[in-house]
């Protein structure tokens, strides 16, 4: 049997718009993945700690406040410090186009803006996480 993909959906920083985070979380669940949702106002430390405890394969960060560069860089740094460099990170929210290469350079695997199709995000994650 295929192992189920474990996803952490997190809202880093102070941004409180969580509609997008909830929609994608439900789409992942319907696709048969296990989803942990952090709720609002998580520090990078809290998110990485949860990722460690829950043994997730992938972290989906939802950011609409414009603080994506700072938050992603802190989270990715912490992940590699904790030996979680293999956990893939994807970002959803409002990210200006010119910032996408900056996030990718940091190690973010995918960036999804408004209007992104949940099916295609699910496919993207399936391709990222190898399961037997």
């Amino acid at each position, binding site marked *: 049997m295929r192992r189920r993909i474990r996803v952490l959906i997190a809202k880093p920083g102070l*941004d*409180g718009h969580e509609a997008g985070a909830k929609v994608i979380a439900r789409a992942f669940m319907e696709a048969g993945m296990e989803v942990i949702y*952090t709720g609002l106002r998580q520090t990078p430390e809290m998110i990485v700690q949860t990722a460690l405890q829950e043994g997730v394969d992938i972290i989906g960060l939802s950011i609409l*406040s*414009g603080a994506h560069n700072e938050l992603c860089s802190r989270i990715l740094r912490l992940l590699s410090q904790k030996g979680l460099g293999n956990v893939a990170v994807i970002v959803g929210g409002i990210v200006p186009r010119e910032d996408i290469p900056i996030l990718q350079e940091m190690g973010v695997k995918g960036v999804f803006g*408004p*209007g992104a199709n949940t099916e295609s995000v699910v496919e993207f994650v399936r391709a990222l996480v190898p399961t037997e």
Partner: protein
Amino acid sequence: MEKKKVKTKKTAGKRAKKKSTYGREVLEKFSSEHNRWEEGPLKERLCGEIKPQFKTYSGILPAETKTEFRTGSGEFIINRVYTPLDVADIDPLDDIGLPGQYPYTRGRDPVGFRAFRWPLSFYTGYGSSEDAHERYRALCAAGSTELSLAFDLPTQIGFDSDHPIAEGEVGKVGLALDTSADLQRVMEGLPLANLHIGTVGNCISPWVLAMFYTLGEANRLDPRQMRVWLQNDPFKEYTGRGTFIFSPQVALDLASDVVEYVCKYLPQWDPQYNCTTTMRWGGSTAAQEAGFGIANLICYIEAVQRKGIKPEDFVPRLNLHMTADNDLFEEVAKFRAVRRLWAKIARERFKTDDPRVIALRITVFTAAHKLTAQEPLNNLIRTTIQVLASILGGVENIHVPAYDEALALPTFESTRVANLTKHILNDECFVGSTVDPLGGSYYLESLTNQLEERARYWYDKVEAMGGAIAAIEKGFYLQEMSEGMYRYQKEVESGKRPVIGVNKFVLEKEVPIKIFKGNPEAERRQIERLNKVRLERDQVKVASALAKVRRVAEAKTAGREENIVPSILEAVRAHATVGEIFGLLREVFGEYRQPAIL
């Protein structure tokens, strides 16, 4: 005011008491004609058989595109056509009536937009105080007399700009304010005496009040002469924006303090805008927006009443702050229905016929969540219709998000065109020239009735679980929103709900658009300035002012009734920071943890 019987479901059943627009004879005649039409021309048209009388088309007649047509928020089925039969139950006097008369279906003002002189207004703010100052100066120079200040997230949640959790967020979604000196710098040289200013700060509203108050003092302007609006609606933070600090009960108490203080001392200030926009944007239907909004408003009003203030002394200054979505007719029906439902509920609840209490004031911020990042210029069409719905629905004021909002913070140009939409519709298209122009329309009156009934259902549901605070704490609002949002997303992805440029007529290439870029230096500069204020102020004064805030807060937790505004005003005058004030309030009241609901 003339006493009228409040219509309930029971009395609605007694046909004899209700006067229909049409007499029995007319209705019977229409009914048989309608049957003939359904059995004849309609049936023939639907089965696709081309009779000579339909030979307007060449070839095969197209079938209807859907088996069922529903309103934008999905709660109501739309009939093929509406006739007098659909409004047979509607009493033209008791249900529709006249503008400015109970039940206010047609508006709270007898003359509507015929008397309206729209100001130029903008919701904007970003970066450090210098950046924001530049933008505000430009807006004032361009004729704006109304400014809405947007604060960044650390400010809205009561954190100083150098708090660890604020890193990367300073000046991002609005301007950063730590002390009264920041606001002074932002507003320096602006024509404060002529400006109508305000902000959406909700959980920090006693502090916001104090900030504007001291701004007036610092500019030798009597705060009582200033025109300031405060959103002061903490409930919206638990149901959408997420910038809550304390439990809903504590937040309600602080919000009521602000309403009380404003009503007693600040005659030209608007103390509260009860906001339903974020619930709608987060997935609620139109009827839920109306029903939940009324439930929240009742909760706020009763909290202020418990302070011994009569509804007629403050309700006239409150606003229901709604949104206007894309379904033109559903939105017009919603505005008419919410006024009528409010009039009935408020009359019963507050035992009054005072029109200032039972005639609802509505402010609109149109549907930012329906703006698409794909082909953003298409959003101009959407916002135009949303503004049209607001004008036809007879609301008191309209704010419009910029077409590039789905991409980033708006530019000067996009903000300006957003504001001009209502002016063009009113001045050039004459849509506000008569009051409630859609009143009496078969479809609209029928939909208004359905909306009122459904809004009543949602309102009753919230009341049955214990009111607005229970609905927040039990996660009821969030659950309903979450369901709606997911349903919507699935409909868009399956193509069942067309969104032009997103799932229909999709353009291969992206349209280039100018996007406003924030100042990366804002955070550093803001922290430098904050440290300077911390060093230069009178520390003894700060400590004693903060101690007083703590005493009042502790008295509140001990169940003693004391307004927190005067002590916070003193702390702001002494240059205490937002983080110091809310840091100690966090210690006293504790912080709210929202249940993570999927």
